């Protein structure tokens, strides 16, 4: 009987960890000693960073999607099934058509928008947190020629923390290029007393917002939205009027982890911040947006974490002690205008020190899409530099 590794979730983290293990364990797999299976209900793999860029026509939707099977190594089994329940004590993943026993489990089920948390949210406005919504937002921006455009964060945590800041900066560039910026009032609305969770970055973002004449409405926690009146009400008692609202929805973990009694009340998996084990289980790991780790919900975190988990499962299969620890590394390119970006590189012990916005970072952010499909997702450079 082969030793079985089951990866639940075929997004960034799941695909990288499966491919990297397949690379390391090639001979064991072809000799029937190890089996790697990825479970995901979707046949397609989506490059989610594109969702921010599609509305501004910086990236085309065709660059954002590939068949999952085309990314996975031939030695990895792919089951296009929905995982319904995970039994950590009996080492079983139950899908809609099978029960999969495992020796090692990787949960990489991601985060999903939860529109039900705020009354009125679903009908209120636009966002860039699903493929369809990103395309709809592109059409809405194309029609928008004047008025109040508000970018609102309606819940923390959410995927890609800099994304709403990038959205409002890109909107400033986009409408400036179209010659209608003076007809548009841009506002950035955020639940905290600063525009970003990390203090040093928040200070730089605040300066750029001021330079670009973008209003900041801080300590605004969305309570409800009235799509008819185009009003957003806050818990703090304020009412915000809008003509076009781009609202980052609250997020939660996947149904399968919430239905399996694994998740905390936010829907996230309690995860050891260094070993990435699901707390209490040395044969189960969690990576990417699904975890409760104090790092950004971002593809780069999933990439770095995948390197740690692939190494440690490989070690355990060889009878060795796990040899890698995750240090909290995250890297992202934060767009500050069309043609400019900065870089946030940080870990648990070192906060980011972003360089001045520059074209090189912007260029890399766009080019990275091609590297993602050919190198990152294939597991060829897992956690490069972690």
């Amino acid at each position, binding site marked *: 009987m082969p030793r079985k590794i089951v990866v639940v979730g075929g997004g960034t983290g799941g695909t990288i960890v499966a491919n990297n293990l397949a690379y390391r364990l090639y001979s064991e797999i072809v000799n029937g000693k190890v089996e790697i299976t990825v479970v995901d209900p979707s046949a397609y793999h989506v490059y989610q960073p594109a969702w921010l860029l599609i509305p501004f026509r910086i990236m085309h939707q065709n660059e954002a999607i590939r068949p999952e099977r085309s990314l996975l190594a031939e030695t990895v089994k792919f089951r296009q099934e929905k995982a319904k329940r995970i039994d950590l004590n009996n080492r079983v993943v139950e899908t809609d058509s099978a029960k999969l026993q495992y020796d090692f489990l990787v949960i990489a089920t991601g985060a999903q928008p939860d529109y039900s948390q705020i009354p009125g949210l679903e009908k209120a406005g636009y966002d860039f947190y699903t493929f369809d919504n990103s395309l709809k937002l592109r059409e809405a921006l194309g029609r928008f020629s004047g008025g109040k455009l508000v970018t609102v964060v309606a819940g923390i945590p959410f995927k890609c923390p800099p994304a709403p800041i990038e959205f409002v900066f890109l909107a400033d560039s986009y409408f400036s290029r179209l010659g209608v910026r003076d007809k548009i009032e841009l506002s950035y609305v955020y*639940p*905290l007393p600063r525009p970003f*969770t990390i*203090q040093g970055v928040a200070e730089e973002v605040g300066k750029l917002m001021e330079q670009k004449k973008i209003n900041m409405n801080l*300590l605004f*926690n969305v309570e409800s939205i009235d799509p008819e009146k185009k009003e957003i009400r806050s*818990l*703090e*008692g304020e009412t915000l009027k809008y003509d076009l609202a781009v609202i980052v929805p609250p997020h939660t973990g996947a149904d399968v982890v919430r239905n399996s009694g694994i998740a905390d009340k936010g829907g996230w998996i309690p995860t050891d911040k260094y070993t990435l084990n699901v707390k209490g289980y040395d044969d189960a790991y969690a990576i990417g947006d699904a975890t409760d780790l*104090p790092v950004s919900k971002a593809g780069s975190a999933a990439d770095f974490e995948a390197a740690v988990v692939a190494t440690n499962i490989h070690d355990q299969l060889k009878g060795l002690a796990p040899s890698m620890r995750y240090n909290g590394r995250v890297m992202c390119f934060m767009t500050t205008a069309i043609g400019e970006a900065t870089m946030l590189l940080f870990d648990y012990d070192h906060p980011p020190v972003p360089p001045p916005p520059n074209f090189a970072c912007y260029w890399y952010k766009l080019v990275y899409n091609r590297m993602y499909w050919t190198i990152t997702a294939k597991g060829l450079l897992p956690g490069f530099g972690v």
Partner: protein
Amino acid sequence: MSEEKKEKIKVIDARGSFCPGPLMELIRAIKESEVGDIIEVWSTDQGSQRDIPMWAEKAGHEFLGVIHEQGYDRIRVRKKK
């Protein structure tokens, strides 16, 4: 002679949660509480001492203070509306 009124204190243990976790936990608890209730957030995150009083002031709730314990803080807010 006055009789000391026993106040209802709801404790939210957000120790180990990082910014802005404790503030978000407080906001969730305030939504679920009655006017007059006291919410006590336990936090190991240094930012909570700054963020929670600022939020309470803007939201119109009463910041009651911080009790420093070994390795964490107990931050109290009374729901006012």
